[in-house]
């Protein structure tokens, strides 16, 4: 049991560190360090431009997507080297948020199902951040029931005609391409009639409408498709095999193991360290100590769980469903931590303007973003099902629509 790099890993780390040290946009380091979950604001700079410039710089030196094959813009790094890169990139990694879906999920799906020519054409600009991709999966009637989607694709000569609506599509408003799952056969059970495509988001008939979220940001969108034409050559996988293709995409989400899951704990501990109650340090208060200790062991537990996953990865094992615990634990924890930090401020905790209430504002941003963390990419309840079924081997939920042709599934609760 050790925390040491192998000689090869140490060499990789040293190279990565030296390059980051010489090239990272240090002028934003402090702002990035202080940025709250889900809200990176750089004063006097356009975040999208700063992020794209950083990604391009990395790409030119071969660091943009280290774990991708060389021919598609990577450097063929091992899974553990990828983690080492993330560790070394540190706070600058916060700039890459808008590339994660494209590089982490769309890219691997393209690698598995696109033609060689398409891969060489589309993947390098995805890796370099020049083109941004989104993932068009969720629908208003879908939610956790992803396969319940209704967006139709109908064959018309060598093309497909798409009609329907997607929702919760992160970054669709600045994306250049997307991968899209559609229903091509409504007469068979729901998982069997699906087909996957990729498309140019600037295609005629694609309309993106940002959704104003509960926290006031607009990171997600509704996307409408009206007679959008996609050539059959942009189909990913066989007709009717879209569910399996989408599983490839979702499995790759798990490969994105970070060394640190955001829990809000370091921020809370920092805050409590400087807080006093009637002149006495808050850290002397029994109730504060108890709360902090209980969150501290969750945060450290997640950290060392990710170390165990990294160790398993380095021995060639694939990340499994047990990695679902990161988001499950961190999601509700960050919500609780934010509420507690505001409670400690008493009535003033209600204030959020950065000038009036720098501290409260930071935790309020967490408070208002955290409900989304518990829902996006699988709700707490879905993650518990995944752990129960795939880790503990318990029976699957009863799915009464499983073997029913899609067009015969009831669509309303009360007839």
């Amino acid at each position, binding site marked *: 049991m050790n925390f040491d790099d192998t000689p090869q890993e140490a060499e990789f780390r040293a190279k990565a560190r030296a390059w980051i040290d010489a090239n990272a946009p240090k002028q934003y380091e402090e702002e990035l360090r202080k940025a709250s979950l889900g809200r990176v604001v750089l004063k006097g700079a356009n975040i999208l431009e700063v992020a794209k410039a950083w990604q391009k710089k990395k790409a030119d030196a071969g660091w943009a997507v280290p774990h991708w094959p060389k021919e598609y813009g990577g450097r063929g790094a091992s899974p553990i080297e990828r983690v080492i890169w993330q560790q070394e990139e540190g706070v600058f990694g916060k700039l890459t948020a808008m590339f994660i879906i494209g590089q982490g999920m769309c890219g691997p799906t393209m690698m598995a199902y696109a033609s060689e020519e398409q891969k060489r054409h589309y993947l390098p600009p995805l890796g370099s951040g020049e083109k941004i991709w989104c993932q068009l999966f969720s629908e208003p009637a879908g939610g956790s029931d992803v396969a319940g989607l209704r967006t139709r694709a109908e064959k018309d000569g060598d093309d497909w005609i798409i009609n329907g609506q997607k929702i919760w599509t992160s970054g669709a408003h600045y994306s250049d391409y997307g991968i899209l799952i559609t229903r091509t056969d409504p007469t068979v059970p729901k998982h069997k009639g699906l087909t996957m495509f990729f498309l140019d988001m600037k295609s005629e008939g694609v309309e993106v409408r940002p959704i104003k979220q509960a926290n006031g940001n607009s990171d997600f969108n509704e996307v409408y498709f009206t007679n959008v034409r996609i050539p059959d050559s942009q189909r990913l996988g066989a007709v009717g095999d879209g569910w399996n293709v989408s599983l490839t995409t979702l499995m790759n989400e798990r490969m994105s193991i970070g060394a640190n899951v955001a829990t809000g704990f370091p921020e809370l501990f920092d805050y409590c360290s400087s807080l006093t109650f009637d002149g006495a340090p808050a850290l002397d208060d029994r109730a504060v100590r108890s709360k902090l200790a209980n969150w501290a062991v969750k945060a450290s*537990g997640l950290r060392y769980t990710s170390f165990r996953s990294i160790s398993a990865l380095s021995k060639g094992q694939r990340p499994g469903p047990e990695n679902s615990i990161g988001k499950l634990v961190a999601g509700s924890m960050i919500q609780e931590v934010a509420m507690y930090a505001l409670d400690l401020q008493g009535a003033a905790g209600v204030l959020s303007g950065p000038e009036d209430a720098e501290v409260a504002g930071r935790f309020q941003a967490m408070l208002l973003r955290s409900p989304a963390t518990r829902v996006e990419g699988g709700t707490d309840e879905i993650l518990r099902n995944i752990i129960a079924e795939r880790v503990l081997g318990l029976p699957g939920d009863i799915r009464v629509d499983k073997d029913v042709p899609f067009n015969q599934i009831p669509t309303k609760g009360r007839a």
Partner: protein
Amino acid sequence: MNFDFSDDQKQLRDQARRFLAEKCQPKAVRAVLEGKADYDRDLWKGLAEMGFLGVAIPEEYGGTGAGHLELCVIAEELGRVLAPVPFSSTVYLAAEALLLAGSEEQKQKWLPKISSGDAIGTLALFEGTGNPSPAAVKLAVSNGTLTGAKKPVADGAIADFAIVAARTGNSGRETDVSLFLVDLKAGGVTAKPLQNVDPSRQQAELTFAGAKAEPLGAANEGWSILSRVMDRAAVLIAFEQVGGADRALEMGRDYALDRIAFGRQIGSFQAIKHILADMYVSATLARSNSYYGAWALSTDAAELPEAAAAARISATQAFQHCAKQNIQVHGGMGFTWEFDCHLYYRRSNALALSLGSQSYWEDQLIDRMRQKNAA
């Protein structure tokens, strides 16, 4: 990075699991629980023969000298089966105190006997209600003898010797406490077994009336030695708790697969699945914190005090959570004497209090994180 046990250590785990599956079945735990024996002597002898008692004791003192990672592996297996033996008192507490602070003569006298299973040791620290602190140590020393009482003392009535914390100053500081080694068979000590939440492990009151007090470690250094011993034991007990939590989770999972209600396996109901998923989460966090503790223990890292407190808190939570939820999954059956659920429930609560309560370790953790931040 290799944040896992080695293949050799995993082999040792398998070996310990096979051995314990045969030698430590629930009926053996129940024999002690129901008062038919004060501990499982056959198992104790067997553990000695396997070399498990001396796994972290150097060869020169009769041990195998393998190390503390190996001891963590064995602790987890003992926790899984609720081994009804004085392992933690003797090996995690008494032996560790001797290794840290004992004189050469004391080590030569007691460590080989621990390794061979011929001596049971314990730590006599608590004096009634409350958390460990120098001020709570009242037991007095005069003219080389001890007078006063300690309770609860784990395995106090079956132990051959005890490491005893006694007051040797009145400055109000940690230096008021010194440690003494007392041969419990040499006279001047009476032991009274006490009822406790988990009768598969004994607790006693030790009353000292002029017992000969042989210093262990430097005078007035008792608290600092104790605190190191407690940190080390916290990691080892955390592994017992992780083993217990895992086993309680398995029991709940197996029952949820076997039991049919409303025409379905109860494990197909989300309400039950989510209970079990949450048990898995707490057991996993505890395991990961404990691995970090194991690393810090085995390398004697500067991070040990913080890592030990985190492992202790996390593992206590996990074992208590899994043990109580296992009963819930079992429904009424879980509350019967004949099902084993209550054995785990009892042990989880006994271990939670065995080394100072949760609030004590919460204080330890925050103090240590604070010191690190200030540094």
